[in-house]
């Protein structure tokens, strides 16, 4: 029997080679109906797991690029339900790679934890990551995800002490997202990534995805043997905000993958 997280683990196999690229898309950016196209474009470029952000009015972990994209998406009427619909649409058009929804606690709580997880699975979502839900408060979402068959991803930071790293690894049925430096998404070198990855690796057999501040192919290559996946957010969102978003997203992902 398959369990939550199988697809994610299969898409991010551990190896000494370079990590797989995990592009991030802001749902509803640049248009409410654009995300299904962009999901397929990100897969075509070589994305191994795609993160889909559901916009929130107060995204505490995000920098200016993703904040602005979320604000625009909300102003154009994006909602949690419409975001899930976009994933479902991409699935019906043949999207195969795992999708992890990344959003904040309040939109999920207002949707209802159980209802959200059920709706996400029905839409073809594989996992969920909630950056402002600390490990100590994860019981409710943990139960809801496991009942729905959704993988729970957890987050660790360079400031996380060893005991909490172990807790994060235990909690995760999907990947462990390693934050590359103190800070928010976007600009800023991922200076503390390697050290953190080594510390988590010693404690966990979960796939490790490094994120925050990664925007170049050379950074992806430099993480070979350390990370299983590399999340790239702001750079992809910038591409989605330009002309011909689908082609731009596909090309940026392909470049990051070295294709």
């Amino acid at each position, binding site marked *: 029997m398959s369990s939550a997280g199988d697809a994610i683990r299969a898409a991010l196999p551990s190896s000494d080679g370079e990590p797989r690229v995990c592009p991030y898309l802001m749902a509803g950016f640049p248009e409410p109906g654009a995300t299904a196209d962009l999901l397929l474009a990100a897969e075509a470029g070589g994305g191994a797991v795609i993160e889909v952000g559901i916009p929130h009015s107060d995204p505490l972990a995000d920098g200016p690029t993703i904040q602005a994209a979320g604000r625009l998406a909300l102003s154009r009427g994006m909602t949690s339900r419409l975001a899930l619909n976009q994933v479902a649409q991409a699935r019906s058009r043949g999207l195969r790679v795992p999708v992890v929804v990344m959003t904040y606690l309040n*939109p999920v709580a207002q949707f209802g934890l159980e209802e959200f997880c059920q709706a996400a699975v029905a839409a073809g979502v594989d996992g969920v990551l909630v950056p402002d839900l600390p490990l100590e408060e994860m019981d409710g979402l943990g139960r809801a995800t496991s009942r729905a068959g959704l993988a729970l991803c957890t987050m660790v930071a360079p400031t996380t002490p060893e005991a909490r790293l172990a807790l994060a690894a235990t909690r995760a049925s999907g990947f462990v997202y390693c934050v590359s430096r103190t800070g928010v998404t976007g600009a800023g070198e991922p200076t503390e990534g390697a050290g953190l990855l080594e510390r988590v690796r010693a404690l966990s057999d979960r796939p490790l995805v490094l994120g925050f501040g990664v925007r170049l192919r050379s950074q992806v290559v430099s993480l070979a043997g350390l990370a299983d996946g590399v999340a790239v957010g702001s750079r992809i969102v910038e591409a989605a905000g330009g002309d011909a978003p689908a082609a731009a997203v596909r090309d940026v992902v392909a470049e990051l993958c070295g294709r």
Partner: protein
Amino acid sequence: MNGPGRLIVTAPPPRGRYGEFGGSFVPETVVPALQELETAAVEALSDPLFLAEFYGLEAGYAGRPTPLHHARRLSERAGRPVWLKREDLLHTGAHKLNNALGQLLLAKRMGKHRIVAETGAGQHGLATATACALLGMECVVYMGREDMRRQAVNVAKMELLGARVEPVGDPAATLKDATSEAIRYWVTNVRDTHYVIGSVVGPHPYPWLVRTLQSVIGSEARAQMLELAGRLPEVVVASVGGGSNAIGIFAAFLPDTEVQLLGVEAGGRGPQPGAHGASLGLGTPGVLHGSRSYILQDPDGQVLPTHSISAGLDYPGVGPEHANLMATRRASYTALDDRQALEAFHLTTRLEGIIPALESSHAVAAALRLPAAGGPILVCLSGRGDKDLETVLGWESA
């Protein structure tokens, strides 16, 4: 009374919970820092040397105790005795300095050399910048562009004091956006920076810590009522944005179950979405800025814009302890609108010779609407209104 009132030091609530409210919902990067802060605060608040330094600054620098004033002409108007707790006379003109001094002493003790704060009306930013100047610490204050326009004098004061004031967001940005940005700055610089939140909001341990530091207001006011009025008040009234002056004065009266506690939110222009700041009266439970409380949000969990004539009440959330005091019916909450606050602003000025902050004017307005017969009303006059003159004059010429 001699010397400042004592802090009401309680154990931090387990997991930061006030009933079903509170908690700590923040990105992992700052979770260890919050745990460290709780431990450090518990230690400091049981250390006689720390407390002596705090009380020393409160007395010799900030000007505590602040007076309790029997407002005779307002009493005539109310039909019952009205007493004003004069936090407007505290150095920098509002109760905010109690919290800023306490948190800065704590930050120094923790070895943090840089301070970040958010501000709405500018009073918390000003108090923090002032305390940073006094204690020789680096200070960054985030402020919404709309608030910088409304409170230009406070911006100038903060800069004179050596703080860096960072404008936030689009031209309509206010306290909510400034708070989000201050938290992001803290997430980025958490190793050497302490975040001085300005109200009883945010992730645990802040609601507890700020309440403890502001409880000096209530313990003073309670003792002064007994000394000067010869009895406890029948009602205690305070304005509620995030709710720090209200929690500060309520804290001392919580065990006195015969004393009614009344919080006053911003009714703004009316009850329609976006036109007020009445999180308790018109909001629903949700998570904003790291804690679960009543917030103003749409059905999708997106936080709504707010409005109040008073920048300090222009906030879509409220402290989790207030949410619990409402749920348990220990306190009640009402909202008064811009016009009613303005009317109370003028009455207090003309009848008592005290120009109150627009925040505090909401509390006076509520006091004047209580039934005319009854025991004494204690109002927390949380700040002075110099900062609001331009707003008041502009509103009236519009």
